């Protein structure tokens, strides 16, 4: 088990190291977050709608669209350099390769999510009066479910001639539970509703994340093998 986790971390570390040196995905996602915040600001008529009332929806949409931007390129480097065959020939289990990619993407997306909250908090003058720890739990579970699915389908998209354009068609229909439970929980926590009101959402987000992480890890070999 320990050895398995070491292999998972080796893959995640490699991806994070490449990202740390190139800043490719983080730069794109970071710029997207700030720019979409600006566009959202000008797209809302504040005389009719209070931005605070729809902040949770805007935040989750930004996480998903920004995340797709970065996660869609998860296997690009391996694809371009034909390095995937090398990784597949190495003695690493295929599920560990997938889980490593998920861990790397989760850390990467966590940085982006932190930026989303800072930017939207500043742009829309958001006041948070709920439990911060519960909010972290909601966002972490939602992001984990999102990452596990998008990483999986990103590998599928690299195998397809449609490439990244296939990703939204495959991922968006499956993401509805994350959007429903993530947004409603975030909304309630923003206005300081009790934690008991979002405990159901937390359970559903956890179930979603576990279900798709396990299923995708098991099915990954059918996607990645030539």
């Amino acid at each position, binding site marked *: 088990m320990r050895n398995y986790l070491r292999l998972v971390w080796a893959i995640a570390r490699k991806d994070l190291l490449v990202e740390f040196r190139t800043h490719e995905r983080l730069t794109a996602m970071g710029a997207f977050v700030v720019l979409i915040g600006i566009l959202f600001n000008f797209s809302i008529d504040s005389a009719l709608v209070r931005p605070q009332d729809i902040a949770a929806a805007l935040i989750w949409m930004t996480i998903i669209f920004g995340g797709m931007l970065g996660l869609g390129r998860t296997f690009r480097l391996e694809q371009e350099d034909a390095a995937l065959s090398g990784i597949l020939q190495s003695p690493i289990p295929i599920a560990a390769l997938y889980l490593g990619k998920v861990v790397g993407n989760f850390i990467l997306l966590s940085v982006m999510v932190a930026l989303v909250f800072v930017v939207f908090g500043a742009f829309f003058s958001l006041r948070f009066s709920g439990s911060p720890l519960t909010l972290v739990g909601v966002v972490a579970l939602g992001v984990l479910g999102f990452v596990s699915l998008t990483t999986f389908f990103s590998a599928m998209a690299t195998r397809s001639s449609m490439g990244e354009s*296939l990703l939204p068609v495959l991922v968006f*229909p499956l993401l509805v539970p994350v959007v429903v439970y993530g947004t409603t929980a975030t909304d309630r926590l923003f206005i300081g509703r009790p934690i008991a009101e979002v405990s159901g959402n937390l359970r559903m987000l956890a179930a979603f994340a576990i279900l798709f992480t396990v299923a995708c890890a098991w099915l990954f070999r059918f996607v990645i093998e030539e």
Partner: protein
Amino acid sequence: MSQKQIRWAVGVLGALGVATVIVLHWMVFFWVPTESTMGVVQRIFYIHVPAWWIAFLGFGLVALCSAVYLWLGDERLDRAAVAGAEAGMIFTTIGLLTGPLWGRVAWGTWWEWEPRLTLALLLWFIYLGYFLVRRSTANPEQGKRLAAVVGVIGVLDIPLIHVSVTWLRSLHPEAVILSASNPMNLDPSMGATIGVGLLAFTLVFASLFLARYAVATYEHELDLRDATPAGTQGAEAG
């Protein structure tokens, strides 16, 4: 089952299916009494409800055949999965078109973001992904494998449909026919019409399924013929 037998079954099931669909329409328009609460518009249920049952049957087949295909790699299972997906998608489309027609009168709107309706629409898109993935790879074998994976992941969404129905407030009419508290509490003539609808759509589905399966088999044989060098074919013929 040989190709000749399949063609024969397609013809018989198709003819029976069309005949039963005609009988169903006669029953819907002239025989079954009008429901007291919803009025005439309720008659669309005799098409809508069987369409959804068959749609889910089709997608169940896709999931089952896809999972076993990934496990055993038997080509026939892939053909059955794609046949189930195409036929299932036709009935999902019928369900999605007849639902809003009823909703326009009953709810006063063409579309309502009601959980079952929404996730049914999403299911349609999941299987659109199934077909896109299948056709977008250079290697057809890989396309089949990826589509099977989408089929399996897609069906995992069905329990989430159920859970979201429980959690979110639903505008969708409660299930009457399979209601646990009051099973089969329909007027006998309504039950008979639903039964004929179910039979009609099952026959049409079976015919479409077998027809598509036969086409997939022919495609496979053509692929094999194309892949075989001409000299080998001549030697085999000789």
